[in-house]
């Protein structure tokens, strides 16, 4: 196996053999190179997509600016309000007075159903106390006001999406009724499912009696609250899974976890889990046939082509799926390598993959200038950043069920 990885080591060593990586897990770097990420479910959009919830982002202007553009990309900045805080205000705590005034004006002018205040590393470091402020607003106006700690510092304690789940569960608590309704909730952070996509069609065909509620496409705050009374949750990603687990723990709502995947075994498992969970059977061999048809065509069309994969956390999974089809993955760009990746790294090794692994932050300019000339196709932002002459394939962050994700990538590679 010739896979090699670029890691940070105290000896200044730049390359190590893949076999050694297992002993040095998790691999990470102290510095991140400035490369755009592939589109990802953004925390602020997760909140803004719920009707009736307004977001106030309080912090240094540099921090809130990013939120504006992320929300803007999804057309959600109508409900985002920025409260830029100066260094003087931080030092004197004056920003709390401003925040209180801002929250009061928001609840009186906009009839918000709930407000989530996003705070940054600056307040986390200062240990600013928000509870009394939010309680005052809650008791005065009767609407929930929650504080969400965002930013990389908070990330080290619990995952931001886990904390956000906690906030959503608190808000859902108000909507709990005695009776269970017949709707099915789709829980995920990647936005509304497109009309013609597989999971939506399956649900439409097999759940004729049930209403489907998508977290990312609710019509009202009341619908959001009513999610607590659903009969089944289908979690589409990690956020959905965390929320589903909490809803199961609190209100006994059963759930299915169907994360998007590229690996055939896991795809088949998802089909089986969905059928079992919904207590129906159907023949999904047509989907599999379509996948095999596309895969065979692409494998023939791309004989001898060298592929680079750099799509973020699932790069190894995708690389292995492509190798199984018979494609040649020459480079994998990863920001970190963790235990979950090892399954795919070992599978790649077992099949004799010639892929080289690059930790993106450690790639030198010399390597960048000369090392990636022979790559024909670059999948994902990290790969296309380095492989200048390769055909660039952008991978959508939208949810794809079954074979849709891998088929979409293969179609793009042709």
């Amino acid at each position: 196996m010739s896979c090699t990885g670029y890691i940070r080591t105290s000896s200044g060593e730049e390359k190590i053999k893949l076999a050694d990586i297992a002993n040095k897990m998790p691999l990470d770097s102290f510095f991140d190179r400035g490369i755009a990420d592939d589109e990802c479910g953004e925390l602020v959009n997760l909140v803004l997509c719920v009707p009736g919830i307004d977001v106030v982002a309080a912090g240094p202007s540099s921090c809130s600016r990013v939120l504006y553009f992320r929300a803007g990309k999804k057309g959600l900045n109508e409900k985002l309000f920025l409260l830029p805080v100066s260094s003087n205000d931080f030092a004197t705590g004056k920003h709390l007075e401003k925040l209180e005034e801002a929250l009061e004006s928001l609840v009186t002018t906009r009839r918000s159903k709930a407000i989530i205040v996003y705070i940054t590393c600056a307040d986390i470091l200062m240990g600013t106390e928000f509870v009394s402020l939010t309680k005052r607003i809650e008791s005065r106006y009767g609407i929930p006001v929650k504080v969400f700690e965002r930013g990389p510092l908070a990330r080290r304690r619990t995952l931001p999406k886990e904390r956000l789940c906690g906030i959503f569960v608190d808000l859902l608590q108000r909507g709990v009724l005695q009776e269970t309704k017949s709707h099915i909730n789709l829980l995920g952070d990647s936005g509304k499912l497109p009309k013609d996509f597989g999971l939506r069609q399956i649900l439409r065909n097999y759940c004729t009696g049930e209403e489907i509620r998508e977290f990312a496409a609710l019509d009202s705050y009341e619908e959001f609250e009513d999610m607590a009374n659903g009969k089944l949750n289908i979690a589409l990603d990690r956020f959905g899974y965390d929320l589903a687990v909490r809803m199961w723990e609190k209100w006994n709502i059963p759930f299915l976890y169907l994360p998007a995947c590229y690996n055939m075994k896991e795809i088949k498992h998802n089909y089986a889990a969905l059928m079992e969970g919904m207590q129906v059977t159907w023949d999904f061999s047509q989907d599999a046939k379509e996948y095999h048809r596309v895969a065979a065509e692409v494998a023939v069309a791309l004989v001898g082509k060298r592929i680079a994969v750099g799509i973020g956390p699932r790069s190894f999974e995708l690389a292995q799926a492509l190798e199984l089809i018979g494609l040649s993955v020459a480079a994998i760009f990863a920001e970190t390598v963790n235990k979950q990746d090892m399954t795919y790294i070992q599978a790649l090794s077992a099949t004799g993959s010639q892929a080289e692994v690059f930790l993106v932050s450690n790639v030198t300019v010399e390597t960048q200038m000369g090392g990636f000339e022979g790559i024909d196709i670059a999948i994902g932002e990290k790969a296309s950043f380095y492989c200048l002459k390769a055909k660039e394939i952008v991978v959508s962050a939208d949810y794809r069920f079954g074979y849709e994700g891998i088929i979409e990538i293969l179609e793009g590679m042709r």
Partner: protein
Amino acid sequence: MSSFLSRIPSLASDYSGACSVLLALHSLNLLYSPGGCSSAVIECDEIRDLRQTLFFSSKLGEMEAVMGAAEEFLFHAERLRAQNRQTELIAIIGTPVPALTGVDIGAMADRLSKRTGLTVLALPTEGFETYYSGVYYTLLTLGKRFLERREKKNNQVNIIGYTPLSLGKETHLTELMDELGQCGLEINCSPIEKIDMKTFQSMSSAGLNLVVSHEGVGLAQYMQKEYSIPYVMNLPVGLWGMQRLFQVLAEIVDIPRSNASKQRYAPTGRAQPRQRAVVIGEPLFASCMASCLHNDFGLDYVEPTSLMKMDRRMKKVYQEETLFGVHLFEGEEALGEWIDRIQPDIIVGDPLYQGLLGEGSTRYVPIPHVGLSGRMYADAHYAYIGRRGYDYLAGFFGG
């Protein structure tokens, strides 16, 4: 709604400004940050190709952020330098967390300089100020660290203060570069090229500094004091701007008089004296655009404005005569109210400012300001300099 809440984004921050200056150099740029701060630069503020740069951000845990992580930072910075030998300098750039915890970025820079033998700039930006401060401070720091006395070359002109944050893509400046070149002037620190340190250092031999944004004035003032190089603040917006520029140039450097002739830059459209206009943007841009609208299109009433928080370190800049007429607003509510009172027929500015306007018949002339709207409109078709700028504006003013 509360005056504290904002519906448009803040201007890019001071560390984005610092990065914007440094990305034009062969510099290893290291952001001291818990990790998320680089998103502002990567996702919003930097419109150039990041492949051409070495821009890294640290990832600090909570303990490291609170207790400081200077030694680890320096250790890995040294390794990055060893891996990227072609860099000519290193910059350590601050963000809100080191500002709040009191990290001594200057001391870190000194230590890294000793270890690597390279000049290491300490840029203690905080993320609380605007990019204007960051650009101003970084240019000034570079000037103080690298410039040295050189023999004068009277036909050399430096262009100072260009960053995409204030002036958009570098292609907007090609007409200016062409015109200066045709006059036989040698342009140093061209906005359209990566600048090596040798080129940067040769700035001190110039006969003139042409300052194209107010944040560039600090370096020009420093160079005037230290190297007796005069400067002019002029972004040549429209035909009038170009004419004025060459009139001023003719007084200072040796160029053919014909380049400054009125005929060469005579507007072709008709005047619109009864129109009232407001220009919103970077202060020098706003001022020069207002002059263009007044002189090229005959508008009697044009008010240049800028939405910005003043930085006390830049107080000498605000005293420049060119900026006297610019109305400065700290908050969008005050700007919105002022516009409501003025009731202009035309507003020239970034498309995001349209969100501040009420219903009405005001015509809007979009000139994106990357420092405000980031990448959103950076690729839009627009122009403001010289003939191309005039033609673009004439499309709105019926010229």
